[in-house]
């Protein structure tokens, strides 16, 4: 069960991949992230990463705004990846 359902974390998302925020890990997240609209259910895309994958740049929400954040914070964002083709029902992540 852990293998498939365990949500990935934002920092592991690859360039160009999309995902939906499912929650945040226990560590305290600065309130600023919520204020910026990084909330559960919001879709995001990894745009590009700097050297050592830190910091990284995502676009998120319906407004697709472009935001840079550090790996330390990105590691606390839990995500459910969205398959490239959104109609693709066979993706194991969609079961949950």
């Amino acid at each position, binding site marked *: 069960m852990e293998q498939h359902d365990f949500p990935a974390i934002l920092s592991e998302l690859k360039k160009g991949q999309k995902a939906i925020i499912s929650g945040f890990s226990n560590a305290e997240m600065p309130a600023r992230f919520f204020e910026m609209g990084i909330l559960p259910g919001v879709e995001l895309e990894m745009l590009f990463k*700097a050297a050592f994958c830190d*910091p990284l740049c995502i676009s998120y929400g319906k407004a697709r705004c472009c935001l*840079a*954040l550090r790996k330390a*914070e990105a590691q606390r964002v839990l995500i459910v990846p969205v398959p490239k083709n959104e109609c693709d029902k066979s993706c194991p992540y969609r079961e949950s």
Partner: protein
Amino acid sequence: MIKVALIGNPNVGKTTLFNKLTGLHQKIGNYPGVTVDKKVGFFNHEAQYQLTDLPGTYSLYPSSQDEEVVFNILTDSQHPDHPDKVIVILDASQLRRGLLLFHQVQDLGFPVLLVLNMMDEAKKKGIHIELDRLMLKLSVEVVAANVRKGIGLSQIKEKLIHINTSLARRSFNPDHSYGKALDDFRVLYGIKNHYLAWAHLVNKQSPLMQNDAQLRGFLRKHFLIPKRLQTKEILMRYACIEKDLSDILHEQGGYSSRSERIDRWVTHPFWGYLIFFSILFFIFQGVYTWAEIPKSFIEDSFSIFQEWMHHHFPEGPINIFLSQGLIPGLSAIVLFIPQIVILFFFLLLMEESGYIGRVVFLMDRWMRPFGLNGKSVMPLISGVACAIPAVMSARNIENPRDRLITILVTPLMTCSARLPVYTLMIALVIPDKYWMGFQLKGLVLMIMYFLGVLAALCTAMVFNKLLRRPYKSYLIMEMPSYKWPIFKHILLSLWIRLHSFLWHSGKIIMAVSIILWVLSSFGPDEVFFYHRQETVTDSHPIKDFSDPLERSYLGIIGKGIEPVLKPLGYDWKIGIGLLSSLAAREVFVSTMASVYSIGSTSSNSHLEEKMKTATRANGQPVYDLATGGSLMIFYAFAMQCMSTLTVVRRETKSWKWPIVQFFFMTGMAYLGAFAFYKIFS
């Protein structure tokens, strides 16, 4: 006078709107107790308005010192800047995020005017907003604008008169589970407005709440955790905004494809750095080569003016004071202008176009081990040209702690004023030889530059350990899409910064120059300024005094501090050079020229000859490797620049930090020079 506060997210054109509304009728002051600039401007439109530009923020609840100012001004009705009306400006493409802040402000009970900025950009991105319905839904006057292009400004002024509280407002209504606690709280503190009470509950930094055992008891009794309340509020508000906007906001597309194409190169782990360093290389070429022309022009015109003044004023002390004390002091200030203007022009260009965000992105990881962040990069690098604009450019760093560290260490970077000292010393003590195929002199100069960088980074690390952290350090930065810069805006910002330098630091530079002139012109025995040669060769306050210098107060002080300088290998002549270069480092060279009685400072080769043949009592040359090297080390670390200190005072709003900076840098310089001298002598 109607007080209006301007509030909005960072990077939504808030300052542009402020500048457009008030033009040059603005002044920069302080908020008491914090190091935050208070920008106030004035304009007339049927009534007199006082407009305050509040620091950019995403919500009412502060996560930095700047944002505390926002909270305090808006929630404390006794605050002198508490506004009568509020303009909330937001980016039309980031409607949700802006509305979060808007709702908070509106719920506090202010009459609000909502400005949707960058409308045409939003349209290009495929975003369509039904303004009429938005107005009804939010019960607020809305102006669609493009502030950069000046669209919507007259409408903003027009509507500002008419907004008032009469519009029906939807007030904040948290979960019923908090209703009882909130009512109790309002009674306890006598707060009428529901949301105001809630905001005080949420914000731990609220001045009303600090050290309040009563509040802690209250929170415990009702099982309230401020941070949870804050998260709850944000979630509720976003849910509400999403519902409101469902039939008002129509969007498609997103992050501009042009920006995406540019970013593919500009943020690339290899090409990105290459592009960045090429741009830097270009800027420094510019600063060094282009600044030379106006610089020599300023020097020339000041010396002509000085000459003219000297001949056309009646002989006497006033004449001497004006031509040798005041004018050189004035020119010492004006001389910095070309460098400041050129460097800031490029920095503002990078800022206006949106490139600076990419620099922060690329450099953040590399600066973190030193307790700095990506935003410290530009100030540090600018420090290689001149610490004054560099310290001023640290304003972009929002985190006050990171900003302070950056300001404290920036003067350690090898600024261009150190160059004349280094070149003189290298010419004196470094042999004209090759080492592993490199010219030794050039190599030493390069080592001095590296030493500056190393010193800056290491000190940053030390400060990082010493200074307490009031707010957690994290990076969350919007990457703005690229824009064509508008030159008028750059020029206005340039002027505001230049003005602040001339006005605030100019006074002090002037005072120090005059004091140094007085000390070097007067002595206990006689007044000898009449005997001084009147040749004017450059703009520095101290020049062309031969013998009398030894008998002047400055000379006496120089001799007085000789015992302190002896362990470093310096004699009293160098001591005078060190003292007089407190005004600016390069003054050392001209002072040395005077000390060694050379009529003109323009011929450095003569000076070198003289200094080379200078000997100590025991017949050894004064300028050997030990002394020369020790002097270079001293200049690398020492805070020999009054102008920088005054700018640091201005930027940190207290004398505490420039004093700390002066002592730790001079201490480092003394120890470093001492160690070097001991090892090599």
